């Protein structure tokens, strides 16, 4: 609308009554922290991370109270057990040796392959009894056992026995039997010791059994005399399986969480504290002192971090019976404070020159008041965010050191050392690596996402924006 068209009426000059109402705040004013918390709460990823961290903390702190299995107790009968549901073993009579089967007459013609491979008895973890019909022209038999189907590439698996008597057509397997599926193969051997091409194969799934005396010896049964054959007895339950020494994985993961989170949270707190003191001293002092302090910090920053972590770990040494957590904490603090000091100094220098500091000083504020009222509240957001990002870095460092054997000392479990042990049995028992690796990854991920969320929530420029 151009000026020529504008025809003011009397009402255009009346008092604008509604102005006061319109300028009223639509919602109550929020403090910095209330606002940050509100924005963090709206960030679904950050909240999910926060709850994951709370859950992990509970897992570490309260877990061992609920799940009381000893993380160091070894059970060599149950090594590298995969996670499974609670199982019960059936009580059976004590083992009695089996005489086996021999045939009187040998076939002269027919295939040179053992036929009708079958079980002589119900298969149990106590023993698997195999019998077969003799092969023509055989001088003996080889029996193999595998944990997967041998047919694609004739991988018969573990050689169990070599029988040098063609009349002997039975074998009793008692070697380390578990309640899983086995493929037994029998191959005929000629007089020269060469195996025939064909073989007989049988799939067997032994039932989990134990004799009453054995059960009592292992502590699964109070009194063997009261148990009857056919009764069930509950096995010690390992929901996450066991490791290569038969130790309970769940309990080790809980105790490992204590170590990993303890170092992961305490070390950043400590070196942040050192960094705050050093950085704010340099920032306040200024001039030559500042130059000298920061030059020294620059040198420490230039040290190759992981190499010096290893060096310090060696230098501090670990005595017998110590877990090696303390040397790791000291080394982490010694090497990590300078970057935090730089950060704090930068913040202090920036804030020191702000107009509101000058205004506050003009109004008579003393240094103590300035620090408490302005410096700390204005830096704490940045510090908090950095702290959140330092936690996963420290957890990674701990895991790396434990992986190359320089972390916490063996009986103490940490996620890093558990991964290190799990990697050796990775091909056969992947759960021993996957569980600790999963816990490290989830923790690191949660702290990283929470850090992202916090950074967005605490950023004043984002205030009131969506």
């Amino acid at each position, binding site marked *: 609308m151009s000026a020529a068209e504008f025809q003011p009426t009397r009402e255009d000059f009346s008092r604008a009554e509604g102005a006061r109402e319109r300028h009223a705040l639509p919602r109550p004013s929020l403090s910095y922290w209330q606002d940050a918390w509100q924005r963090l709460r709206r960030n679904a990823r950050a909240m999910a991370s926060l709850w994951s961290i709370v859950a992990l903390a509970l897992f570490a702190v309260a877990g061992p109270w609920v799940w009381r299995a000893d993380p160091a107790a070894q059970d060599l009968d149950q090594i590298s057990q995969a996670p499974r549901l609670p199982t019960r073993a059936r009580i059976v009579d004590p083992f009695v040796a089996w005489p086996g089967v021999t045939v009187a007459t040998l076939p002269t013609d027919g295939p040179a392959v053992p036929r009708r491979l079958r079980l002589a008895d119900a298969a149990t973890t106590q023993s698997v009894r195999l019998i077969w019909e003799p092969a023509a022209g055989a001088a003996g038999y080889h029996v193999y056992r595998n944990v997967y189907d041998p047919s694609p*590439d004739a991988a018969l698996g573990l050689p169990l026995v070599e029988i040098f008597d063609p009349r002997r057509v039975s074998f009793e397997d008692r070697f380390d039997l578990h309640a899983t599926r086995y493929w037994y193969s029998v191959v005929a051997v000629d007089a020269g010791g060469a195996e025939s091409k064909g073989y007989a194969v049988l799939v067997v799934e032994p039932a989990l059994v134990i004799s009453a005396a054995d059960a009592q010896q292992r502590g699964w049964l109070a009194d063997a005399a009261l148990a009857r054959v056919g009764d069930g007895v509950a096995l010690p339950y390992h929901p996450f399986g066991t490791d290569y020494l038969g130790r309970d994985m769940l309990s080790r993961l809980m105790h490992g969480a204590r170590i990993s989170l303890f170092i992961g949270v305490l070390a950043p707190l400590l070196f942040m504290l050192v960094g705050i003191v050093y950085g704010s001293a340099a920032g306040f002092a200024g001039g030559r002192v500042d130059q000298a302090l920061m030059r020294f910090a*620059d*040198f420490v920053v*230039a*040290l*190759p*971090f*992981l*190499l*010096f972590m*290893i*060096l*310090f770990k*060696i*230098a501090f*040494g670990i005595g017998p019976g110590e877990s090696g957590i303390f040397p790791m904490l000291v080394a982490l603090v010694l090497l990590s404070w300078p970057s935090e000091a730089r950060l704090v100094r930068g913040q202090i220098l920036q804030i020191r020159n702000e107009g509101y500091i000058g205004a506050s000083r003009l109004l008579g504020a003393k240094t103590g008041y300035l620090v408490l009222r302005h410096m700390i509240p204005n830096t704490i957001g940045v510090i908090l965010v950095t702290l959140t990002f330092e936690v*996963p870095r420290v957890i*990674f460092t701990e*895991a*790396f050191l434990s*992986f*190359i*054997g*320089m972390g916490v000392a063996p009986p103490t479990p940490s996620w890093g050392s558990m*991964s*290190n042990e799990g*990697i050796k049995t*990775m*091909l056969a028992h*992947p759960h021993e*690596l996957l569980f600790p*690796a999963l816990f*490290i*990854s*989830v923790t*690191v*991920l949660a702290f*990283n996402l929470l850090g992202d969320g916090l950074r967005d929530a605490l950023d004043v420029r984002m205030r009131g924006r969506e």
Partner: protein
Amino acid sequence: MLVYILKRLVQGAITVWFIATATFVAMHAVPGDPLRGDKLANEEIRANLKARYGLDRPLLEQYELYIGGMLRGDFGLSYTQENRRVNDIIRENFPVSATLGILALAVATLGGILWGALTALYRNRLPDVVIMFFVIVGISVPSFVIAALSQLGLVTLNSMFGRSLLPVAGWGTLWHMLVPSLVLGLSTMAYLTRLMRASMLEITSSDFVRTARAKGLTPTQIFLKHQLRNAILPVVTVLGPQIALITTGGFVVELVFAIPGLGRYFVDAVQQLDYTVIMGTTVFYGAFLVLMVIFVDILYGFIDPRVTLE
């Protein structure tokens, strides 16, 4: 320019001296005797060995010898391997680590720039979501787990095809290098992707891009000449520290894939407490990293014409 490089080199030399001194102090603070072991029970042999390694002299003199040796580029003799010079160990094993590191860095940088640019172009659409998911995985899963899992994957793949498609471990051909360098570069690639994405998004909404569009440039021209070139700058800045990360990450990858590099040698030396090898390797790596950071800073001056090196 020349003055700047000289100044940086002098600073770097002081830093390397600081690293060497810190290493010396840390190693000599170790309680106990580096020359222990059953075969050294004889006092005479011990004394001879001490004299050979210069351990019978006062600490200050040892320090002088150590620094003097370093200035001449001599890192001394190995404690656990008789008559083997640390220099020879480094000369033999470092090229392997360097090859692996350069490959990993190339994978990480190219991948990071490419994926980062892609995610920014397809912001909040499917390619962005998929790539960012892998970025999060790359950042949160420790390198040794990725190394172990990829090895497990290789074993499964080879047994599935019934022949060796890719070697599972070892060193020699380009095929041996492929998977380890991918694994080693992964976390850096993830980090660079994130950085590249953020910087691309920032550049896209900047004034000069709008001007370029207003001038009537095609989207391809804008992307290549304006957005990409400017967005790469933060990536170059972090390359220096990232080289350090790749170097130490190499330890784990060399260990898992049985690659005869300096990193694996270092881990062995740490486990056997071979002090001279540990000290020599640390100082060597330290000097290497300092040089790399200086190199990246100078490179930055060439890439970004706004930066003047002073």
